[in-house]
């Protein structure tokens, strides 16, 4: 279901964004670091996901996530890169509202709003 040939069975009602983050953390930890897309991509994805889960996300992040996943896929040395983006890709496809909810909560709480203009150089 979530990639890498393994089947993970989860309880109904599991927070899918959190689950995707957990899987992503695993891939981030396992990435050997040989090729750039997987090495840099997995750390980027994990950091963004952590932010979203911690209710510090923003709407643009979702688009970035999709882009990053697509950019990793098919451009790495081994199949690990392809596998590593599957959790985010599939959860974003099937449980997008959960992401949106988290981000909206973040925006509502206005915990932190990274100034996009300042952050992008």
């Amino acid at each position: 279901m979530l990639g890498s040939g393994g089947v993970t069975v989860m309880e109904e009602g599991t927070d899918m964004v959190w689950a995707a983050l957990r899987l992503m953390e695993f891939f981030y930890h396992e990435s050997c670091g040989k090729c750039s897309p997987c090495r840099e991509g997995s750390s980027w994805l994990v950091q963004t996901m952590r932010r979203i889960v911690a209710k510090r996300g923003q709407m643009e992040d979702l688009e970035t996530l999709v882009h990053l996943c697509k950019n990793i896929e098919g451009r790495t040395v081994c199949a690990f890169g392809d596998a590593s983006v599957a959790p985010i890709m599939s959860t974003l496809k099937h449980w997008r509202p959960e992401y949106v909810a988290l981000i909206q909560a973040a925006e509502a709480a206005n915990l932190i709003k990274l100034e996009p203009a300042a952050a992008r150089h």
Partner: protein
Amino acid sequence: MATTTTETVRLTIDGIPISVPKGTLVIEAARRVGVMVPHFCYHPKLKPDANCRMCLVEVEKMPKLQTSCSTLATEGMAVRTATTVVHDAHKSVLEFILANHPLDCPVCDQGGKCDLQDFSHEYTATSRFIETKRIFQKEYFSPLIETQMNRCVQCLRCVRYCDEVMDVKALAPVGRGTMTEIKSFGAHPLDCEFCGGCVQICPVGAITSRLSMYEYRPWMLKRADTVCTFCGDGCQITVQTKDQELIEVNSAQGAGRNSGDLCARGFFGFHAASHPSRVTHPLIRRNGVLVEATWEEALEFVAEQTNRLKLAHGPHAFGGLITGRCTNEELYLFQKFMRLTIGTNNLDSSARYGHVNGVQAMRMVQGTHRWTVTFEDIVQADVLLLVGTNITEANPITGLKVKEAVKKHGATLLTIEAIQAAVGTISNISNLSEQHFCVAPSQFGAAVLGLLKAVVESNYVDSAISQRASDYVLAVSQAVQQLTWNDLALDTGISRESFVQMAAALTGGRRVVALAGQTLLRSQGSYGICLNLLDLLLLTGKLTAQGCGFAPLAEENNDQGAVEMGAVAALLPGALDLTDQDARTQIARVWKEDLPLAAGATLIEMIDRAQAGIIKGLFVIGENPVGSLPPQIGAKEALGKLDLLVCQELFLTETAELAHVVLPAASAMEKAGTFTNTEGHVQAVRPAIDPVGDSRPDWEILSAISVFMGAPLEYSEAKEILKEIRAVIPGYGSLGPSPIPPAVDRVAVDRYVNEGYRQDLTTRYTLPARAMRPEGTVQLGLVQSLFHSGKLSTHSKGLLQIEPSGFLQMNPVDAARFGLETGDRVRLSNGRGEFTTTAKVFDRVPEGLAWFPDHFAQAALRLFDCAVDPDTKVPYCRTASVSVMKTT
């Protein structure tokens, strides 16, 4: 084995058809049609690793994008590099690479020549990265090499270069994922060969040279392509200067005979020329002290004194010494000055310290004064025999060629070296060898004889030669039969089986190159050993075959040129005998005057004659006999007796301190000319800076002296001298991509096998005296260090960072025997004197030997004795038996 296939494949790149040899990578094919695919990890010297993913291209009929640096071009392939998909891929990979990259460009030394900068400009890459950047703790790396791991793109070029090309393996990626960081092995600052290869090959500013840190921007630098002056390999270097200041040296990928690789001396040693203690004004001795003078005063003084002495004592009261670091033009003019203006053959150069042994042996057997092989032949060889080369230290780039042959092309390496196989911080050639004989320098002769005996007794003698020259083969067979395996084993510690095995490997090779290096050429009896090595090749039929040959390695950058320019007593320009009538007429025609016939004195003979008061005046150009010969020879006293000692020098050496006149010479960074490297390749030397102070190139000084003497040898520039050289030696110095090696002269070989060999066969086929090693002593050897070259490099601040002083290097077993540890003070003594230094335990020193670097050996010289070769007059003063005692 390199399969030089002519098979080609045709493919199209962005619609442009091209045919390339089979086995070409797509990225290389693209470069040929002028399409530059962005890349980080690809480098023509390295095996593809395909880790940066920057070079993705679209290949028709392949579902995914392919990395062009690891995909081989195949027939009918259609590659597209300029589509939107490819562009997006490049852009996205660049975005990933930039994600954790610091915005360091303003303070980064790579700025302006950085691949990452260039590609970012090309793709106007912006980043959406708003997370926290990864930061590595900065660790101290080395005093010469600066790392800034935050800037690393993990392309592993440095790691791969250090392993694949250098065989040093000093660097490794540590950590995983984003936290991958390039580090040196061990918890200490980098300790390696300091070849600078990683600095040159890093596509970004992650590894930079600390020596030139923050001193420049690439666009400020002026470049001059010239040749390194530190060894006979003759690497092409690009010297970069900013306002007459030496900033950096590097070598463009593929440039010169070194194809862009350098050693520590070439890469970090360039500051010698700008050392503050350079002699910048002419000095004249007045009331016993050297005082500054003008050029006119100095030249007038020299000319006057020379004319006076010549009138009083005749031309043979003069002698001349020149260093092999001078250009061909200077060497030529020097011998012309000595032979024509002065009128004597008393002249010698630093080639006398060893290189003439190899050259004379080649002249004797194969009738050439040059290699009959090239560096390419070494790379393509399938069997390489190294005898006493100490190749990593003495001729690092030839060493790289050997490494390439072994590592890339699977050649069989056979080594007879005074070095023990051990893993160390600098590469050890014996680690790569199939069969390694570790013998002391004094027993190289025995080892070569063992090989000859094995060849004869196992019937490996080439049938052609036994038919053609049965007498010769018989004589050699009889000579080796006199030797017993038992004696050989006692001398060398090598069994009959091992000798036979090595002989078999040697005979089995198709392309066999035998290299003889400095350790051999400077140890006693080496002329005979070189002849024996040539016998070995001749007997196995390897001397005349394609791609085979004998290659003695020159130590100083232009020792080969010194021989070819006739700057040794017994040879005329073109390395022809002084008595060669044709050559004499040819030269007399150009010089419009006859040259002296009386045989000249060599280095040691000149010192003896000075001692005896026969030689009254000596011209010394860049040589330092007082500093490099043991005091037993009495060079200091002899030179002290001279009526006129003229030194043309960069620094006030021990010899120059005795001089009556010191004339400031320009270093190789400041003059034009040519150098001939060890394989006989003539290369252009170009000035990078103006002469320091009032110094002038040596040829200008010689020319000026001759003018003041009233017998002008006038030239307006170095090129004019080269023109004259060409008139004397037709075709000399055709600067080109690859030298055409002279072939073995069959007539000379016939002469040798019919007649020449008889001369000294019995003497050279006797075993060298067995080294008696009384308890408590070791054989002390003066060795070449990788980080220095002669005394010149001890003026280079970069190299002094790596090796500031000399250590006594000793095998752990010996060290334990004497109760020594690294850092202990140790006293060496023998009948001739004593010397105290610091010990260092070093795995690669063979048991029973101890090494001390030649470059710092001033005070140690008194322990050494000097024997002079009866044939080639080479002084052998590199080994001494000393007793070792720990002191405090």
